[in-house]
């Protein structure tokens, strides 16, 4: 009897994890089906639309490169989100942290045009990393020491970062050419070419994508193979037990927000150095980030809050975004359709999570799925 259970367990486990990985995929397909119905109502041919989407995302070397370029900021934010959510804090501040990192890197890149690439690029990346860490750290300190809910403070900090960016781009950082010509478009000058991240292949794909993948692997090792990472996860799983075990819960909560923000900030720096080579604003956060601060959260959840799982999840979402642009051009639907579709995908994917959890509960002999206790209250020293 005992032996049979043991023999059955392995293929069953494989089956389970396969199903677990496929569930969000099915959810995405369901969302796309609902999107197809919307397209029909809009008078567009869904088949034509979705084939344009597929071509747009994977149809050529350039398309694949664009998909990976779009996936890069999602991966930076998403890996940061893995740390935060594993540590039991809900970081909704990816948008603001991306902006903070990008603004900091921009300032340095513009200030030091003479510096050689081997010096200026790392400096800009470090500065972006630190600015993101600071922006996340403010929310972390507010939560850990003043008991301010982090959902709230990160949302507020998003708004504040955007206004700060607008101020700088309409003022001190504005391209002098814009001022001379009197057009006053809120953007900076193009950075010196020394700051350009190297291209991986002759497309728009830059080294930032590789950096993101390397970081995802490093963060995986950090979270599962180091003491600090273990403590972050312990605090997320059970803050009371962690406190009893002598872990400084407040400090680790703060640390998860700092690291989470730092990765998003680094993502922002990579965006300006690798892709845009300047900074610009349309007045809103999404004008610069393209919503990566929110979509990164979704990618992380898609990847089951695992840094390695977040890699393919980011690529999938990058493909969705790039393909959607192509689809919009092919069948002439307003771009807001994509935003709505994006929302549907998010809701369906989170909603489908119940299926994975049900399966997890059924296999009681196997270790139960790790689900961090989100929205942990820092006080309550019992």
């Amino acid at each position: 009897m005992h032996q049979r259970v043991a023999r059955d367990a392995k293929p069953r486990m494989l089956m389970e994890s396969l199903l677990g990985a496929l569930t969000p995929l099915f959810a995405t397909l369901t969302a796309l089906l609902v999107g197809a119905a919307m397209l029909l109502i809009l008078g567009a041919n869904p088949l034509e639309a979705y084939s344009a989407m597929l071509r747009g995302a994977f149809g050529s070397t350039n398309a694949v490169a664009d998909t990976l370029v779009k996936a890069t900021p999602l991966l930076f934010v998403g890996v940061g989100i893995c740390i935060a959510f594993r540590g039991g804090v809900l970081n909704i501040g990816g948008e603001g942290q991306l902006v903070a990192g990008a603004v900091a890197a921009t300032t340095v890149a513009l200030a030091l045009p003479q510096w050689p690439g081997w010096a200026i690029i790392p400096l800009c990346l470090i500065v972006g990393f630190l600015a993101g860490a600071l922006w996340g750290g403010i929310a972390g300190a507010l939560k850990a020491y003043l008991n301010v809910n982090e959902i709230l403070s990160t949302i507020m900090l998003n708004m504040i970062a955007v206004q700060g960016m607008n101020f700088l781009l309409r003022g001190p950082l504005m391209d002098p050419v814009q001022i001379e010509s009197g057009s006053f478009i809120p953007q900076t000058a193009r950075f010196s070419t020394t700051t350009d991240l190297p291209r991986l292949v002759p497309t728009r794909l830059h080294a930032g994508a590789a950096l993101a993948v390397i970081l995802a692997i490093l963060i995986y090792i950090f979270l599962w193979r180091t003491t600090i990472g273990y403590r972050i996860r312990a605090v997320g799983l059970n803050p009371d037990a962690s406190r009893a075990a002598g872990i400084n819960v407040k400090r680790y909560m703060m640390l998860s927000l700092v690291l989470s923000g730092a990765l998003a900030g680094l993502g922002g720096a990579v965006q300006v150095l690798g892709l845009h080579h300047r900074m610009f604003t349309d007045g809103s956060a999404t004008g610069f980030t393209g919503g990566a601060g929110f979509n990164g959260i979704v990618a992380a959840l898609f990847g089951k809050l695992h840094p390695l799982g977040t890699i393919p999840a980011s690529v999938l979402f990058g493909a969705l975004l790039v393909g959607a642009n192509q689809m919009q051009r092919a069948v002439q639907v307003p771009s807001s359709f994509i935003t709505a579709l994006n929302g549907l995908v998010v809701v369906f994917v989170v909603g489908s999570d119940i299926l994975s959890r049900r399966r997890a509960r059924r296999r009681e002999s196997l270790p139960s799925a790790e689900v961090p206790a989100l929205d942990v209250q820092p006080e309550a020293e019992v």
Partner: protein
Amino acid sequence: MIARLFSLNTIVGIITAGIRLATPYLYATIGETLGQRSGLVNLGVDGIMLMGAYAAFFVTFKTGSLALGLLAAIVVGGLMGLVMAFFSVTLKAEQGITGIGVYLFGLGMSNLLFQKTLGTVETVSGFPAIHIPLLSDIPVLGPIFFRHNLLVYGAFALVPISWFILNKTTLGLKIRAVGDNPEAADSLGVSVTGVRYLTETVGGMLEGIAGASLSIALLNVFQENLTNGMGFIAVALVYFGGWRAVGALAGAILFSTVNALQLWLQVIGILIPPDFAIMMPYVLTIVVLAFTAQRVRAPAALSKPFERGEG
């Protein structure tokens, strides 16, 4: 310039504008408070407001009836609340993320519908100001409190109503019980699922009205992303107000008055960059929270799905 800022007329003007601007925040914050007292976090408020604002505007624009417009916002808001409840109560999905999905959906969908059905920015004549006889003639207080439109009065009436419902009725007791200790409520025969569906749907209706208050009572237009993040502020004001109706009122008025003040500063050209002026209310919210958050306690089961037979 400083003298102009402190003249009586100016101060009355700023406070009046503050009261007016508090309207959408009040509806949305009280709607979100209802949900959160029963244990549900809804971050999709902004999306629901946008859909409500669009529905109200479109129906009013086509039929000329403000009542039908308002009804449309209530129906659309209620439906979106229902969907939110389905995902967070029945499917037990992570509520914060579901909310972001609902937000993105509302943001995209409202603009998609706007472009397909209207195309350009139109205006409607919204709810007219009602001067309350006698009271509106009182100097200073009259213009501040008694010369607003129906939706503004409604928002302020909602404060005592929701306070009464939450604190003095059996339903309110059930809502609070479900939010603080769903296991106990369940063992006493209260339907946790039913109560949460109810609060989220009614909350959605109120958030729909919040949107309508913008599109057919205060601004009387609809355009892309009309709310510009107001729904997120409303969520913040729930924490700010300590999950109480009166707290929501204080938060909404403080926030909107500071907003009115910064708009005024820009109008008279006091030399602060507009970006910093826009930042003011957000910074202020964080600062005030930093000083007050220690005291208030969130509903114990907030954002935790209920599972019978667990814990």
